[in-house]
């Protein structure tokens, strides 16, 4: 154990601004637009605001294949609904083949929410969704992927000023060239994928320069995603996958960031 009963690396002021837990399942063939409203009705007290967005597609489940073979109506379009809680810190996203739960920091002073605190919330709402599928006879969700994503934003001025400083922020970016020809980069972005040694998983790391409109700050956005394929669709297996993905995300994040940054974020002993 390191701190507070936690075994994984932990920080007092980590740069995480948003966490999401997600489950992707085989497209529900009987799902119709009306089901978004029916499900919302069950959670509306807690999630009173809604928005409609286009569905997220994936290589394995392209949006066009989300349609049932015979659409129930010509308006049966691939959409995703957002349901937000009162203070707009928690979001549930639903589409024909995904259930996504997001938590975000609304203010810089707000403390970081640990996975241990978010997991029960996800568990409760995922159970509500599964119960809804059962009551509406929409079929059980055949889960094909579990995801944990941490979105980190490292403000310019906190350990870096220009992209020439990136090697002292992210250890996997060396920033060195074999000749003296190139000047310092004006912009850097990259994606890397690592195999996980458990649960047929992958860890994805994306680094992108970004601008945060809420406070007009330039940031490096470091998105770390753990993806696992459950062997079966039981809740026990799903949560073991989420736990494994989260463990890789935390250890992966700590591994690719420098000890200088760990000091800035005040790593706990």
């Amino acid at each position: 154990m390191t701190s507070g009963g936690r075994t994984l690396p932990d920080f007092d002021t980590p740069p995480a601004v948003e966490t999401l837990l997600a489950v992707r399942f085989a497209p529900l063939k009987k799902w119709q637009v009306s089901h978004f409203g029916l499900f919302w009705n069950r959670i509306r007290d807690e999630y009173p605001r809604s928005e409609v967005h286009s569905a997220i597609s994936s290589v394995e489940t392209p949006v066009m294949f989300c349609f049932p073979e015979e659409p129930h109506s010509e308006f049966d379009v691939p959409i995703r609904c957002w349901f937000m809680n009162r203070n707009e810190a928690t979001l549930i996203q639903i589409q024909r083949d995904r259930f996504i739960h997001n938590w975000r920091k609304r203010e810089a002073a707000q403390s970081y929410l640990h996975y241990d605190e978010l997991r029960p919330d996800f568990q409760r709402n995922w159970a509500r969704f599964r119960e809804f599928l059962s009551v509406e006879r929409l079929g059980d969700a055949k889960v094909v992927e579990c995801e944990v994503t941490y979105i980190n934003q490292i403000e310019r001025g906190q350990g870096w000023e220009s992209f020439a400083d990136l090697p002292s922020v992210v250890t996997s970016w060396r920033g060195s060239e074999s000749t003296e020809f190139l000047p310092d980069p004006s912009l850097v972005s990259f994606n890397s994928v690592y195999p996980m040694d458990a649960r047929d998983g992958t860890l994805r790391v994306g680094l992108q320069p970004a601008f945060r409109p809420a406070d007009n700050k330039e940031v490096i956005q470091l998105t770390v995603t753990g993806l696992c394929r459950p062997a079966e669709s039981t809740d026990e297996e799903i949560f073991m996958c989420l736990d494994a993905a989260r463990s890789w995300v935390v250890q992966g994040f700590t591994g690719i960031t420098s000890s200088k940054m760990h000091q800035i974020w005040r790593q706990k002993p």
Partner: protein
Amino acid sequence: MSLAAVWAGSPVMLRERERRQQWSRVNILEKPRMLECLRMVADLTRLDANWDGHGSAKIQSAALSTAVGIMLQAPLEYLPMPHVCPVSGGSVGLHWRAGERELELTVLGNGAIEYLAVPGQRLEDEASIEEGTLSPGCAGDVGRWLQWLIEA
């Protein structure tokens, strides 16, 4: 090129934004020019009150947000680099020169924008100098003046 289309954001970009799972709003930067322009505006946040030695207020957040909004939506690849500067009272100054034409914007502390469009340096051009004020929330109207600059 229709500036109206550029100003609204390309449909491809909007679709990409919609596809993301991320909730917190952020603008991913893919072009160094955009980064450079935004950094010039963001650096103004580092100025304390009395930055000019004459008691000026800090740069106001509404002025910064509006200036950032202009940069994010402007077709920067078709424009010369702007000159960005602090203006007494907490405003932000944006200045472009394209050929003979000049556009000067002063983004005020309440988000309103004063504009001055100078068509050329000749004496006869003075008669067609245009100036005015755009109300807060009307930053989109700046597009008309940027289009005018691009056509120079």
